[in-house]
């Protein structure tokens, strides 16, 4: 059965698009048929991170408004044949998205894919609410700092009240993905501890992605980090997170400074 996953955060610049590309690519690598959908209408980025910016003809808005067919707008990844991109429009804004139009597109995508991953724009306005509207699961991307955590808390509240699932009395399955985790700064106490983040958000942890030059490098060359540098710690962390998303049990590793010793954090299942 197709799953609709929204990657969201509230705050900008925490790594939603990077995570969408990485998780999408990792899922496709494991044999799932995946489409990543850019909801950041007007400020699209996912096409760049996926390296498909020169192949965009039609976009999400065209499909929502019925100008183009879904098959015309979908772009197949050149590296993974299971991975597709539905780009956003750069010339329009979020008001061009309609609830029923998005619902129709998501329904249609559900027919032909195992995973529909919606890359949410920052904020809590139309773009973000429509990206999460039809989600079955949510990955809340959080940096270990107070402003990001508070915004994530706000987004979790919206996932619990503004989605179709919530309105039907069901629950969107939520996961916290901590990104840009800097082991050195964490050791100096300059960042919120993982436990504190989880205590505040009261939501299970999906993974911890270390702050890394590899992520930046991958974005710049337009390739998801799990494909660009599969042996890097960030790529491995994304792959582990993806396995957990698929229901596997993988021991949680807290990225440590290069002193060799990896601390193990027991899997926390917060209330």
């Amino acid at each position: 059965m197709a799953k609709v996953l929204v990657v969201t955060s509230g705050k900008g610049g925490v790594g939603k698009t990077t995570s969408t590309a990485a998780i999408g690519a990792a899922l496709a690598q494991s044999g799932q048929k995946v489409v990543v959908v850019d909801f950041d209408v007007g400020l699209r980025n996912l096409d760049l991170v996926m390296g498909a910016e020169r192949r965009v003809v039609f976009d999400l808005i065209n499909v929502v408004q019925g100008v183009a067919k879904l098959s015309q707008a979908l772009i197949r990844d050149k590296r993974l044949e299971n991975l597709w991109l539905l780009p956003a429009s750069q010339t329009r804004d979020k008001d061009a998205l309609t609830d029923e139009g998005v619902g129709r597109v998501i329904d249609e995508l559900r027919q032909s894919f195992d995973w529909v991953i919606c890359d949410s724009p920052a904020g809590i306005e139309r773009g973000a609410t429509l990206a999460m509207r039809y989600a079955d699961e949510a990955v809340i991307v959080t940096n270990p700092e107070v402003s990001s955590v508070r915004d994530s808390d706000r987004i979790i509240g919206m996932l619990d009240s503004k989605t179709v699932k919530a309105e039907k009395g069901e629950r969107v399955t939520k996961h916290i993905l901590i990104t840009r985790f800097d082991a050195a700064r964490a050791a100096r106490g300059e960042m919120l501890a993982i436990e504190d983040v989880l205590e505040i958000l009261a939501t299970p942890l999906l993974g911890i992605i270390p702050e890394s030059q590899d992520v930046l490098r991958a974005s710049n060359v337009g390739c998801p980090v799990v494909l660009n540098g599969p042996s890097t710690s960030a790529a491995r962390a994304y792959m582990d997170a993806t396995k957990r998303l698929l229901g596997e049990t993988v021991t949680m590793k807290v990225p440590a400074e290069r002193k060799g010793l990896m601390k193990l954090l027991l899997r926390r299942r917060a209330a």
Partner: protein
Amino acid sequence: MDAIAEPVTQPVRLRGRSYLAFVFTPVVPIVDWLAELDATLSRSPGFFVGKPVVLDLSAVELSRSAIAHLIVSLEKKNIRILGIEGVDPSLLSPTMPPVLSGGRVCEIAQVEPEKPEVRPQVASLLLDSPVRSGQSVVFPDGDITVLGSVGSGAELVAGGSIHVYGTLRGRAMAGVNGNPHARIFCQKIEAELLAIDGYYQTAEELDEALRNRPAQAWLDGGVMRITPLT
């Protein structure tokens, strides 16, 4: 001439009087019909006490013993039968109520069974999930209890007291309708703002020693006190 006083015989005076009787029309199966009657009685017990009841047997064909049995069952429910209608008189024994005829249908003013007293709503609101940043819970009628934390940027407004079984990081305003006796309780205090009946304190004024401990806030005259809960 002796006048013999003849005993004066008072002629029996007959007066007519009409009463409104309830007519019961049993249908087969009688057991179900009796169960139905029981249900009615349980809603308004004593409804038929002292009221004349006529049994109309035209819808069923019962033997003499069955009729006797039915009358006994009704008597057990405290329903006494005044007369029987729609039945062959030969089926009735002398101890049974007499056969009636010539009844006319009339409207019965339905007496509404008394509604069970509606209890006043319990003035308390229970939230069993965390209150997230940006959410605002307003309950002017009484207490708010939260089983979980209240996030930074969330807001609780209660007419009564506020209880948080988790960390209180947001704002809590108790006794907003002018109740100086309202209090705020929490397992861990990191509140941005606490207010009771208009008196407030911000996080800055909060004693560092209290942070991250169970605490309560209450009004002592015009002064807000925040004290640890031990």
